[in-house]
């Protein structure tokens, strides 16, 4: 039985060990959110070199809902972007992980290195590279398509396909992330289950359908959740490839916030946009978490 002094020491240890992380959390996450809330309810003006802030209630939110049509176009595009890009990344990433797992020796090492290449490239390089590749007049993709009598296609300039082109680049960029998590998940599966299943399954497809995928559900859900949340942060690809245009065809939430907050220096409306997006993503995280927990408990019930 622990004595009072031991309990006190344990309590002190717990507090002491948590304190640095808590202070960092307050300084880097909680304070900025409160600051954002304050700014979203204010109008900031610069007069004679000094900032003058005035409390204006919900006027910035009123402005956001009534006049910021570009932001709402960005919301629509971001949702389309997230659904399309993440779905494709999950399918390709999982398929690539299965291929790498089945390969052996040098082939496996080469496949893994090639598959991971896009994720280690800096976004600025990716943007410049794909802008060159997809260019209408001088792009390599159109040159290749020209050999088979197709095109030229204006991948980034045609408003009907510009968003699809950006999604394509994002799929190329982030599929390796899914691949990496899936491969790790596949590697950690209990091999005895597969050995035992050999008596019941008749084909690799059956093994995949009835053994691999059910065992991978927790990894798949976590990866899906991570990618979904991260896809709402898309900015660099849009900034570098299309600048949100033509029209609003590739506008995304973060680009609207960037332009409002930094280019236009409208701190109040930019903060209102940021806050609304923050709340939406937080709700999404909670929903995805609840869903993952529900699926996990179902999966555990089934196995027990």
């Amino acid at each position: 039985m622990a004595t009072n002094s031991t309990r006190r020491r344990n309590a002190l240890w717990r507090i002491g060990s948590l304190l640095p992380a808590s202070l960092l959390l307050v300084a880097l996450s909680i304070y900025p959110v409160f600051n954002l809330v304050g700014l979203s309810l204010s109008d900031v003006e610069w007069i004679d070199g000094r900032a003058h802030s005035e409390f204006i209630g919900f006027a910035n939110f009123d402005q956001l809902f009534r006049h910021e049509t570009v932001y709402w176009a960005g919301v629509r595009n971001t949702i389309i972007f997230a659904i399309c890009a993440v779905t494709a990344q999950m399918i390709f990433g999982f398929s690539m992980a299965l291929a790498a797992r089945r390969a052996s020796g040098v082939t496996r090492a080469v496949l893994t290195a090639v598959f991971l290449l896009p994720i280690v490239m800096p976004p600025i390089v990716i943007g410049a590279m794909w802008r060159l590749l997809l260019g209408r007049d001088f792009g390599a993709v159109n040159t290749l398509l020209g050999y088979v009598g197709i095109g030229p296609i204006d991948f980034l300039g045609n408003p009907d396909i510009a968003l699809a082109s950006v999604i394509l680049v994002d799929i190329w960029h982030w599929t390796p992330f899914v691949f990496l998590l899936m491969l790790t998940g596949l590697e950690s599966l209990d091999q005895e289950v597969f050995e035992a299943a050999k008596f019941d399954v008749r084909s690799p497809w059956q093994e995949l359908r009835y053994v691999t995928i059910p065992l991978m559900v927790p990894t798949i859900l976590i990866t899906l959740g991570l990618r979904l949340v991260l896809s709402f942060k898309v900015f660099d690809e849009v900034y570098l490839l299309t600048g949100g245009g033509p029209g609003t065809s590739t506008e995304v939430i973060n680009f609207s916030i960037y332009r409002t907050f930094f280019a236009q220096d409208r701190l109040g409306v930019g903060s209102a946009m940021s806050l609304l997006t923050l709340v939406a993503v937080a709700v999404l995280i909670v929903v995805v978490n609840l869903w993952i927990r529900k699926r996990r408990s179902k999966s555990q019930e089934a196995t027990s």
Partner: protein
Amino acid sequence: MKQTKTFLLGSVASAMLVAGPASAEEIRILINQSPWLNGFVAMVEEYEDQTDNTIELDVTPFGGMLEKTRNSVRGDDGRYDIVALNAAGMAEFYAGGFLKPLTEIDAEFALDENVLTFGGSTGWNFDTNGFSADGDLLGVPINGNVQVLYYRTDLYDEAGLTPPETWDDLMANAKALADDNTYGFIPRASRDSILYNFTSYLFSHGGSFFADPSGGDYSVTIASPEGLKALETYIALGNEAGPPNPGAIAQAELIQLMSTGRAAHAIAVVAAYPVLNDPNSSIVAGKVGTALIPAAEGEEHASAAGHWVAAIPKNVTGEKQDAALDFLNWFLSKKQQLFYVQSGGIPVRKDLSDSAGDNPSFAFLPAFSENASVSRMNMPLPQGSQISDAISLFLNQAVIGELTPTEALNKSADEMHRILTEAGYTLAEPSKL
């Protein structure tokens, strides 16, 4: 030996003529990555050779200039002793009181009469909240980046054409020179740059953005019959003589198409001239001429001012301010401006043509002078960046067919009026189509 002695004496004399500050200072300048950067760097090196001062450049892409400038001038201690921005971007810093009036640094300082102010963009009138040469002197021009018309001289010679006077002439010439490998005309119509290029069309059709900006009347006038004609001309040139989907063409694509010989005409900043005529970066070097931007029949010519202005923040020390002004004063002298042009820069003086001779580096000067003399700013007010973003979208949507020209101009007028009235301006109702 004699030559060496003469050179040394000359150097001493030069050093004495350049009256620098009492002690050596390091000046920090925020400057953008641009086609004219090489010229600016050459000037900096020349200044360092001639004086004891040293200059540290922070070269930044255009997209990051505004944020860096704000961060520097809004703090207690400024990071930069000289900030440089395109004039329209400078409006918020003039109006916000971040910059030191140059006559407070040196009471004797004044701009030479041959230095171009591009519509008074070196001063600010705090009563009308707008640019004014008669207001406080807050900046000096460092790059006369006006727009000019580029055309292929070889194609013109073959076809027996002459540079266009009117927009109709330009359309005819562009159609005459267009073929499977060459676009007749390249419009710069991407969302982030369309307003700048539309400006010369609007003014040269007799239209305007505001009723009387120099008098402080910012009532919105963009949606007018003249504005409509200007936008229709803009769209027609792109659709009938340009590449497909012009709504995605920004400056980089425009220069690329011109320098690879894929285009016969374009309207772009004069700073592109050295790039287009450099054999290392252009296959049509020596075949690209410059001219005055056309006007509508019976209207006055106009060019969009995209010049850059340098200013000295209040939040740097007096010694740094003195040194910064010394550099800017040196920069504006005729001798150094000639050196600037030879190094790839765009001058800010109007008295260089007589010294140009046959030097090919100076071949753009006549067109530059013509366009500079009719150049105007589109958004000469602190809310310029917000308005620019808003109406650029509508203009771009008109180019890609999502809005009719009338819808685009009416929406632009409504949005401009709303932004300005919310900012506290007293305006007449906007004109509408």
